[in-house]
């Protein structure tokens, strides 16, 4: 398993380099001008100088390796310097945002906590709700509970977050006035009251994202449980005199979790994608919102870096899913 993991990690390096190249070239070929939002009073020759100052005068075969160097060498050096007080970076040029002129990674580090709080929490909540729903729906197939669960997941699948989010705001913020419609990022949790406030402002974005997760995961869980409930080994377990709870929660669940774990691991990157829209609606200034603003301003270094980080996340989650599969299923051995 260890050699397999190392082999997969090594293999992911060329994959990621290729992804980085494709993202870079897509941004290169896309229309848009980082200077477009500059005031019109700036004369064209000054604008041209500014463009050259951003490094845009260089061809792509110079800028792409430079970005790679900055991403893989300079940025880790700065990170190590900050953490341990060393001086590896030695004043090397970091990846700088076109818009804010500040290092891209500093901005990302600022935005990360909000996104992790909202997105991470929604995923955990979604999965925790989905698993029991899937198990009960399968065990009591075609019962009232199962039918209600099917209906709610259908809604979760088909209603996009930009619609359900607005509906929630209209109901709970505008009409009832129970919950704030804007996520206050400056809010600090120091005591019970501020914690309650944090919960209140998180509820709606978390619920909107969790609805999607719940819909997907509960369906997979149900299907996987149904697959396994009809297996011969379930009859064997019953014939051994095991109670229904042992049969379902031990014998069937352990087998059913194998594909579901994969789905959960692979779903983590996509939930970040879904968060881009939800963050816009609830004014959460997280990574998703940052990406949208960067795209609008043709902030190529920022877009490139965030997109590439998502790609890294996807590749890593694939690897984790495969490793978990091997751990959970004794029939699968990679070495």
């Amino acid at each position, binding site marked *: 398993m260890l050699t397999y993991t190392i082999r997969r990690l090594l293999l992911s390096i060329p994959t990621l380099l290729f992804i980085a190249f494709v993202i870079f070239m897509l941004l290169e070929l896309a229309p848009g001008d980082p200077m477009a939002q500059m005031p019109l009073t700036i004369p064209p020759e000054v604008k041209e100088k500014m463009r050259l100052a951003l490094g845009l005068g260089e061809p792509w075969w110079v800028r792409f390796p430079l970005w790679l160097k900055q991403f893989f060498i300079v940025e880790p050096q700065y990170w190590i310097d900050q953490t341990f007080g060393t001086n590896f970076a030695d004043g090397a040029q970091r990846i700088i945002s076109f818009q804010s002129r500040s290092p891209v990674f500093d901005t990302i580090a600022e935005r990360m906590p909000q996104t992790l709080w909202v997105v991470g929490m929604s995923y955990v909540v979604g999965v925790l709700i989905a698993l029991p729903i899937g198990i009960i729906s399968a065990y009591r197939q075609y019962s009232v509970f199962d039918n209600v669960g099917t209906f709610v997941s259908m809604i979760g699948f088909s209603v996009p977050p930009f619609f359900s989010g607005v509906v929630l705001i209209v109901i709970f913020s505008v009409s009832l006035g129970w919950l704030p419609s804007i996520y206050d990022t400056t809010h600090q949790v120091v005591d019970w009251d501020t914690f309650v406030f944090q919960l209140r402002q998180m509820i709606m974005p978390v619920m909107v994202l969790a609805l999607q997760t719940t819909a997907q995961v509960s369906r997979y869980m149900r299907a996987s449980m149904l697959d396994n409930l009809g*297996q*011969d*080994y379930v*009859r*064997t*377990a*019953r*014939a*051994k*005199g*095991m*109670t229904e709870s042992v049969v379902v929660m031990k*014998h069937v669940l*352990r*087998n059913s979790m*194998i594909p579901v774990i994969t789905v959960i691991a692979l779903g983590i990157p996509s939930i970040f994608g879904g968060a881009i829209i939800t963050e816009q609606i609830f004014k959460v200034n997280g990574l998703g919102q940052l990406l949208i603003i960067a795209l609008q301003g043709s902030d190529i270094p920022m877009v490139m870096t965030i997109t590439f980080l998502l790609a890294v996340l996807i590749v890593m989650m694939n690897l984790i899913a495969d490793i978990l599969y091997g751990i*959970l*299923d*004794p*029939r699968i051995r990679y070495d």
Partner: protein
Amino acid sequence: MPDGALPVLDVRDLKTVFKTRGGEVHAVNDVSFDLRPGELLGVVGESGSGKSVTMMSLLGLLPSPPADVRGGTVTFDGKDLLQLDPEGLRSVRGGKIGFVFQDPMTSLNPVFTVGMQIAEPLRKHMGLSKAQAAVRAKELLELVGIPDADQRLKDYPHQFSGGMRQRVMIAIALACDPKVLIADEPTTALDVTIQAQILELMKELRDKLGMAVIWITHDLGVIAGIADRVMVMYGGQVVEHAPVRELFGNPGHPYTKALLTTIPKITGAREKRLTIIEGQPPILAGAPKSCPFRDRCNVAFDRCAVENPRRYDVGAGHDVACFHAEGT
């Protein structure tokens, strides 16, 4: 009872119905039989004749719905199993009555070790600790002839061959010293040499442990080799029941006779085609009002279409559900 021993298991008028969209399917119709201590009862019949459903009904192993055990009594250990509550039934399953299923490839849970799967009933029914259960599990694996038992307890089912897995299934069924072992086509999924090994093992274990065995199969050759008594089922009913020699030497029911002619002979002319029983097995919709075999029977007459024959005793512990056997 010829030998005076009380039966360990006594089934009377068992009736099982499956509720489907197309109406009710009467899979088991008034099946009665008994099982004496240490005896091996063979149950033969073609697919869909109700052999497995009968045995699963005894222990409530059929999913309900759609299955519904309508009536009858199953006396075991002085209790009626059909009246027991779920907990009472669970203490019988795997404890006093062991079950071996047809397909050893799918009957073991793929994600748990063999040792854990054998220890499970031991811990539940005999209250053994983890360490005690491991010792007993090792003994059981040795009993069913798996070498290197200590190591193999830690293996997963996919690391065993088909025959070895069936031995593991038998070890699980035998774990708590059952009084009755129900083997539902235990050798059907295995090839012939492995089948012979498993048969040998079962004979040996029965002599050693003295339990009664119900052996379900559609292979008459297997039955002839190991059974004491045979029950032939057709269309959810018992059509003939006799000691094994009597059945093979003096079959009474036209279905049994036909079955025996379908066994190919090693001696004699080779060019002859294989014998078959013409026609289709009956569709079991609705309670039977006529003989289920009459459409395929070459000695059927008017009465067979209007009345379902009961089992007529023809002596020597032999009974036949056919009007031709009436009064003989």
